[in-house]
């Protein structure tokens, strides 16, 4: 679900530049939504296994806060690893 062609060629379709730009803008919005959804699917892959033991009658508040923390800590981990990796690369560059 990743990229739509970001330079959609509407030549020969009778679209005015304004129409093409408008379509481009709306597609970009949909693309962002799709990226968000894809990311939620990825979080679910990790956090479901971490937080749900046996599916019960409802999500209890402990499970709920586990899911919220899981998302936040996963993002923190991503940022932390990205930063440290960048430092390693910079040091190694010379």
């Amino acid at each position, binding site marked *: *679900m990743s990229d739509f062609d970001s330079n959609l060629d*509407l030549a020969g*379709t*009778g*679209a005015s530049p304004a*129409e093409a730009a*408008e*379509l481009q803008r*709306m*597609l970009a919005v*949909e693309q962002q*939504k*799709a990226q*968000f*959804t*894809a*990311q*939620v*699917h990825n*979080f*679910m*892959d990790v*956090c*479901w*296994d971490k*937080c*749900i033991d*046996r*599916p*019960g*009658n*409802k*999500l209890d508040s402990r*499970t*709920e806060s586990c*899911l*919220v923390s*899981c*998302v*936040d800590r996963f*993002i923190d981990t991503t940022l932390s690893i990205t930063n440290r990796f960048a430092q390693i690369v910079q040091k190694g560059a010379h």
Partner: protein
Amino acid sequence: MEGFGSDFSVGGSSAGKVDTGAIMEQVKVQIAVANAQELLQRMTDKCFRKCIGKPGGSLDNSEQKCIAMCMDRYMDAWNTVSRAYNSRLQRERAKM
């Protein structure tokens, strides 16, 4: 989840003019279908792992019940995770 129609004609091709609204409508439907398929596939994977310990001769009653429960909880969890991610994005944006 609306409209699983498969007849995606090119928007406004008959008039030789693009119908932006019709194109976007088709894009949205296609994305919705893709999202539903993704959800279904992932939910099946997770709930099979949770509910079917040793595959027997058929899905027994307790397995069926577990699957139904698991589906409902998966969708609850999905919404919780989606909200958590969204509010994190908002907080990060506020920091900038």
